[in-house]
């Protein structure tokens, strides 16, 4: 499969970076064709400028601002996000990638009424996320809500193929993680890459 891995973490020696490397290596080992988008390393600008915002609803113009990123998105059969959950949601870097790259007319069409948004990214048949959290899972799940996961799974997934499969993998309580829990998590990442 052609897999696009979108990654956002600023620190090279972090656990988040380790997850990203293990996932990319694992996917390649299992015969997938992988493109890694390391947004920090690329120096991606997550700020939607005034010009881009003015062009946002204009077909053609809105895509011109992020043509290279859209090419990756159209190429992919699978899309996987790897990021740390900061303040219950996506880091600004990744939120800005979604704000700027998932433009109307290319990735979806806006309905005029109450109908759902009509997706146009039918090339994506698998959508997934791997994230780290400071909080325990029940706090995220039942109290505050996993807003990053929702934006991806409820916001982006309907824009993908109608039978798009999905998965989510989280390491919770990062602040009290141990080398053992982190290694066990990386083993799950390996397993994921092997069964995709």
């Amino acid at each position, binding site marked *: 499969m052609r897999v696009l891995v979108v990654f956002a973490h*600023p620190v090279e020696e972090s656990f988040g970076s380790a997850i990203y490397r293990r996932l990319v290596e694992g996917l390649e080992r299992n015969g997938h064709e992988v493109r890694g988008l390391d947004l920090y390393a690329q120096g991606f600008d997550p700020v939607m400028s005034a010009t881009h915002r003015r062009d946002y609803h204009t077909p053609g113009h809105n895509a011109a601002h992020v043509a290279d990123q859209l090419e990756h998105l159209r190429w992919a059969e699978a899309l996987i996000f790897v990021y740390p959950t900061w*303040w219950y949601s996506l880091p600004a*870097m990744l939120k800005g990638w979604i704000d700027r790259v998932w433009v109307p007319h290319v990735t979806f069409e806006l309905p005029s009424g109450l109908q759902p948004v009509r997706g146009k990214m039918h090339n994506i048949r698998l959508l997934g996320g791997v994230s780290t959290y400071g909080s325990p899972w029940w706090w995220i799940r039942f109290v505050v809500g996993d*807003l990053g996961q929702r934006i991806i799974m409820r916001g982006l997934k309907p824009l993908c193929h109608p039978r798009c499969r999905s998965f989510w993998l989280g390491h919770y309580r990062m602040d009290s993680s141990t080398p053992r829990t982190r290694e066990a998590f990386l083993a799950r990442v390996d397993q994921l890459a092997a069964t995709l």
Partner: protein
Amino acid sequence: MRVLYLYCHPVPESYHGALRAAALAGLERAGHEVDLFDLYAEGFDPVLGGEERRRYHDTTRNRAGLEAPIARLQRAEALVLQFPTWCYGPPAMLKGFFDRLFLPGVAFDLTDPARVRPMLGHLRKLAGIVTYGRPRLAAWYMGDPPRKLVTRYVRWFIAPGAPVAYHALYHLNVATDTARRTFLDRVERRLERF
């Protein structure tokens, strides 16, 4: 009151520009002293970088380079947040404000990790002014991240029991001029009584 008005929209001639003018007029009539923090106009950088992330938990060093915006946050007695909903959440620009400025030792006390305590008790009022392109039902299904940001997340940091107001205009994509005008007037009247 000293009000920090956190504004996040790139386009001056947009509906948000008009909303901001209405809100500021209301606050002025109420006699508040307003510090307008226009994230786009001031060129705020929302990206939490590598060095900053490494010193994030070190309360002796994590403010480096952020002293000015932190001072504005700490001087304020009330906070108003105005932003559009993009892709179901706050724009990256605003998300980055929280990623970078809501630090240990600034916004919360992490000395005892088992008992994290808020540190923005000097904020005694909070208001959100938010627009959504899609209808309210769509926002609800998404978990309404903008509403949660204001009424749960920021609320936790400020003075306990402080009043929180949330002014939202849903389905802006198809809103009529009347609906826009009505919301504009409502925001102005509400902020007159802020």
